[in-house]
């Protein structure tokens, strides 16, 4: 979703309620082992709580008890202090956004009608529903013209965005997301995750997010509930805490041996000191560029070609510099370009994937902000500073 485009009519959608599990238990039939056992945890309003664990740990069941698509056997769940057991299920569900892995868009309804599904159930006036659909299409960064299309005409990623928009349409108090990005290819998944985090920074919903992927949990969660077989919570803490001090062996195993690397998922590129590359402009005399390169404090040994708006175009090679003026088409391709908002782990992955040692980092307008190198990351991982940074990042992970 394009940044800096947050339309003024997108109210800071404040409606969000806390969710409290109060000894909530689900038992199927007479079986002795409950699917969810005495679950007690509190999700503060406006936060993302990720339920993560191996398959069969009861995470989806736990999530579905909130909107009563799974009924509670014992205990209770309170939304904003109100018991869900007292509510009529269909009415309760209209106040809770619901996103599933298979998306489940209505094939016979247009995109705008799909988004307007819950408002329609709530009996909103047609004009209001249409206006809301248009507003949400903009919020998720889809062309308003797509509103008249049918789901089959959209890509998987677009469909998933519409699924999120549909869940947000009636401004729900709580969002339930069941492996929402699980069926999306890795590249688009990363993009959708980032988009959702930006969206969440605007709408500030209380989100219960189910995944089996610990990396996704670390990235998305304000808090993570690591669940284990038998429907029990092994640890409920911030991502940093789960990584730094796993509660027990189960959590440690589940988090994996590469905990150090995973810490990168808690940081954004903007959180680290970047390097500066000597900048060059098209048509500039190469002599000037060579002077910059020769400076003793130069951090990146290659000049970066930028346009008049300081947007990176490519790296200049020795051959480029052999000419009198800087050419418009540099010899070396630009390679990966990173966003200030990218998570460090993804940035490192992009660097490795692009077989690049350096990658320009740009701001929301695409202007050069600095250069990230593999060296910066490895230095950072080795420095004692890492721990401090992690904590501060974890406290405000989604700006």
């Amino acid at each position, binding site marked *: 979703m394009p940044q800096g485009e947050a339309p003024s009519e997108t109210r800071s959608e404040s409606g969000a309620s806390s969710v409290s599990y109060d000894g909530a238990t689900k038992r199927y039939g007479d079986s002795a082992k409950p699917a969810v056992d005495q679950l007690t945890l509190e999700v503060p309003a406006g936060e993302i709580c990720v339920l993560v664990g191996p398959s069969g740990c009861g995470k989806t069941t736990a999530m579905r008890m909130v*909107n009563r*698509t799974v009924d509670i056997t014992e205990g209770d769940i309170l939304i904003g202090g109100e018991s869900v057991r007292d509510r009529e*299920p*269909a*009415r*309760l*569900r*209209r*106040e809770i956004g*619901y996103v*599933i892995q*298979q*998306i*489940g*868009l*209505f*094939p*016979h*309804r247009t995109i705008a009608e799909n988004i307007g*599904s*819950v408002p329609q*159930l709530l009996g909103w006036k047609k004009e209001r529903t249409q206006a809301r659909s248009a507003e949400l299409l903009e919020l998720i960064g889809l062309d308003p013209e797509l509103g008249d*299309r*049918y789901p*089959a*005409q959209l890509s998987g990623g677009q469909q998933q965005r519409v*699924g999120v928009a*549909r*869940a947000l349409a009636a401004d729900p108090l709580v969002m*339930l997301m069941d492996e929402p990005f699980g069926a999306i290819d890795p590249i688009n998944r990363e993009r959708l995750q980032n988009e959702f985090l930006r969206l969440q920074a605007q709408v500030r919903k209380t989100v219960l997010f189910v995944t089996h992927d610990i990396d996704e949990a670390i990235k998305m969660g304000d808090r993570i509930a690591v669940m284990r077989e038998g429907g029990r919570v092994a640890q409920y803490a911030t991502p940093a805490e789960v990584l730094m001090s796993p509660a027990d062996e189960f959590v440690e195993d589940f988090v994996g041996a590469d905990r150090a690397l995973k810490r990168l998922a808690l940081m954004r590129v903007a959180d680290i000191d970047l390097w500066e590359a000597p900048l060059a402009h098209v048509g500039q005399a190469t002599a000037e560029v060579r002077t910059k390169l020769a400076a003793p404090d130069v951090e990146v040994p290659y000049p970066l070609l930028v346009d008049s708006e300081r947007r990176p175009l490519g790296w200049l090679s020795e051959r480029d510099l052999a000419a009198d003026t800087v050419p418009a088409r540099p010899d070396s391709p630009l390679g990966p370009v990173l966003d200030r908002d990218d998570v460090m782990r993804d940035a490192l992955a992009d660097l490795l994937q692009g077989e690049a040692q350096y990658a320009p980092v740009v701001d929301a307008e695409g202007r050069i902000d600095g250069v990230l190198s593999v060296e910066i990351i490895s230095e950072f991982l080795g420095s004692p500073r890492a721990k401090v940074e992690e904590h501060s990042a974890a406290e405000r992970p989604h700006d």
Partner: protein
Amino acid sequence: MTSPALLAAVGEVGKGFIQERSSDTLPCQATDALFCWDWAKDNIDRYGTPTVQHVELVAISVVLGFALAFALALLSHRRRWLQPPLLAATGVLFTIPSVAFFFLLEPFTGRGRDTAIIALAIYTLQIIYRNTMVGLANVPESVKEAARGMGMTERQVLWRVELRLATPEIVTGLQIATVSTVAIATLAVFVGGGGLGVPMKTGIDFATNLILAGGIAFLLAVVSGLVLFGVQRLLTPWRRARQT
């Protein structure tokens, strides 16, 4: 042209329809042509009433059959145990030879159009019921889960989602049922049900007549099939939308 045995089986063959306006001999006998244009031109108007009767037979039977099959489908949709017996029952009814069915019903309902309509309607049950069930079964589980999860009641899930998405199969069922009923309805004449079977039966030894009556029945089948195809397209605009 037709064997005496078949003529005997059919019964009261003979003058009636063909000879009403002609002399004692059959027309065009001299030329021995397969299709007698002169006779056709002079007599085409006389197929009007049988055609209207035929359309009525088909329409009423299909509407009744649809109402019953659709009700059975809704009834058994959330009660899965009902589906095998209903499929079996409608299937057995479907396999009874049509002429036999008409005569089986005759002692109970007498001769006439009603008997024909009952038999024809029962024939449509299997096709419409099975297609409706297939359509409902084809609705993706994820779509139903999303519908319930957003707060639709079971009734809303059924009418706003499942039946809408099952529309293509349901209309296809109607289409097949209608086209086949157009053909089977020509046998309604055996219980005095009228329709295009009347000229066929009374003039079974006159090719021109058979071609005319059969041709009209064929046209009825084609037209009703096309109309329902159009209805299906109108009701399911999302299926025409292709990836762009």
